[in-house]
């Protein structure tokens, strides 16, 4: 395929389409984001440092990071399992199950937020059983984790599923013939093959969860120091017309997301290269 591309006779429109792409990308995405960093840099260093190390801000960073991490981890485990079931087994309703995996991509986050809050509130469908046991879900970090699990659900499934589909079953058969049991086959043959895809899905779900706002803001209760996520804190600063503070908090978070995005991409180029070499 690479060969086909590199030996092409020139098709028309490269200069025009490339120019348009770069200009539009710069106007809509790059320049506005540059302005964010510019605004953050108008603060003096001590001001910047005081803003991003404020007790309330640090508590919020911590909460956002660990709830996002655990939600992505839940998705790593169950997403891989769902991908496995969808690829390897046949059962009634499989196509429907496959289709609804993408719902969190298509459903507006605010709607997911109010629906989950209604279900997990102390008088909700599921929340009331937990309330009876003395466990509060909505308006606690547990609720935030549930919302983040919802919005991250498709990432791991959709990363692992195609890799599992392409996995040649001959290796598993060979291993079985040589006397490997199903646990050995899974950990020695299947797991190494799908591991890069699992990590990509995990990182995508994690990155998405870090910035999530709509689904969390209803279920979290938004108590400072306890259940206040970073995007909400940015909005709070904006509402106080503290533009510099909002930009500073956002810049730190954006930097973190970019590093994550960069790592995912490097990982993907590497695995793509490896596959091409084979």
């Amino acid at each position, binding site marked *: *395929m690479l060969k*086909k591309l*590199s030996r*092409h006779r020139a*098709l*028309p*429109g490269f200069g025009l*389409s*490339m120019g*348009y*792409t770069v200009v*539009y*990308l710069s106007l*809509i*995405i790059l320049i*506005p*984001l540059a*302005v*964010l960093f510019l*605004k953050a840099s108008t603060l003096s260093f001590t001001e910047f440092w005081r803003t991003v190390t404020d007790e309330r801000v640090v508590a919020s960073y911590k909460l956002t990071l660990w709830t996002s991490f655990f939600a992505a981890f839940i998705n790593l485990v*169950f997403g891989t*399992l*769902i991908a*496995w*079931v969808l690829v390897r*087994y046949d*059962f009634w309703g499989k*196509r429907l*199950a*496959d*289709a609804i*995996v*993408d*719902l969190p*991509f*298509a459903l*507006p*986050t*605010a*709607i997911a937020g*109010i*629906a989950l809050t*209604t*279900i997990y509130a102390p008088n909700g*469908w*599921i929340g009331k059983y937990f309330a009876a046991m003395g466990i509060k879900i909505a308006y606690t970090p547990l609720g935030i984790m549930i919302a983040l699990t*919802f919005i991250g659900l498709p990432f791991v499934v959709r990363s692992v599923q195609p890799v599992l589909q392409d996995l040649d079953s001959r290796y598993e058969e060979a291993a079985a013939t040589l006397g490997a049991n199903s646990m050995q086959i899974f950990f020695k043959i299947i797991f190494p093959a799908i591991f890069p895809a699992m990590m990509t899905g995990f990182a995508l779900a994690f990155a998405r969860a870090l*910035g999530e*706002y*709509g689904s969390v803001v*209803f279920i979290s209760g938004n108590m400072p120091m306890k259940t206040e996520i970073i*995007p*909400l804190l*940015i909005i709070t600063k904006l509402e106080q*017309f503290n533009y510099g503070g909002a*930009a500073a908090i*956002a810049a730190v978070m*954006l930097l973190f*997301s970019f590093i994550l995005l960069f790592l995912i*991409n490097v990982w993907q180029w590497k695995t793509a290269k490896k596959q091409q070499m084979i």
Partner: protein
Amino acid sequence: MNELVLEVKFVSMKKWLLIGVALGFLGLFIVIPLLAVFSEALKKGIQLYFAAFNDADALSAIKLTLVTAAISVPINTVFGIVAAWAIAKFDFRGKNILITLIDIPFAVSPVIAGLVFVLLFGSQGLFGSFLAAHDLKIVFAVPGIVLATIFVTFPFVVRELIPMMQEQGTEEEQAAMTLGANGWQMFFRVTLPNIKWGLLYGVILCIARAMGEFGAVSVVSGHIRGLTNTIPLHVEILYNEYNFQAAFAMASLLTMLALVTLGLKSLVEWKTKKYVNGG
């Protein structure tokens, strides 16, 4: 013999256990929230359900949502086709970097997407005094909502098209050129028919996201009832006023759109599979 029967039983037990866990997880996280939306919307009967839409603020929210999508989706669709053409059909240095840059809106919190436009066009923003002097309003008005929506829906069409166009290669286009077609003829008779299903799905995803965007729009809208409220923002207001039935009735509109999106995705996958198998 007996051992074999036991093993077969064990294997099928494991299979059904895994299927059970997978479906249970999907049921808990996907199906129950879906049911909750419709059950809450219809809780007080069908008449009150429809009454929720017969309200000036609700209608203006629906209208603004449609206007926003009608502006931002075509802009991003044109960009998506043009950018995918450059990226999928040509080789150049820095292609991976360009694709990564296009992906940025996926990694940026919607709240930050809104924030950058406030920093640019807000009253204390970079162009704030210029806009005020010329009596122009972008933030807390419709243009800001459109801009924020364009930002968050930026990658949807192009990301659907790139893998599809890369897979199709350039042979058919080159054949068309050799046969004397000009650029536009080649595009409309060869490229566009080849990508139509992927394009359709990308556009539908873009529409669903444009109409459902909450975080970014929430930051730039200013929440002026009847003026700068989209459907998701109106849902939030109703919900915070404890008017749950009306909030979920409005929410059910976008939920139906989400379900249509999923149905269409299955259709597109089925169609493209047929194309690959048949072609």
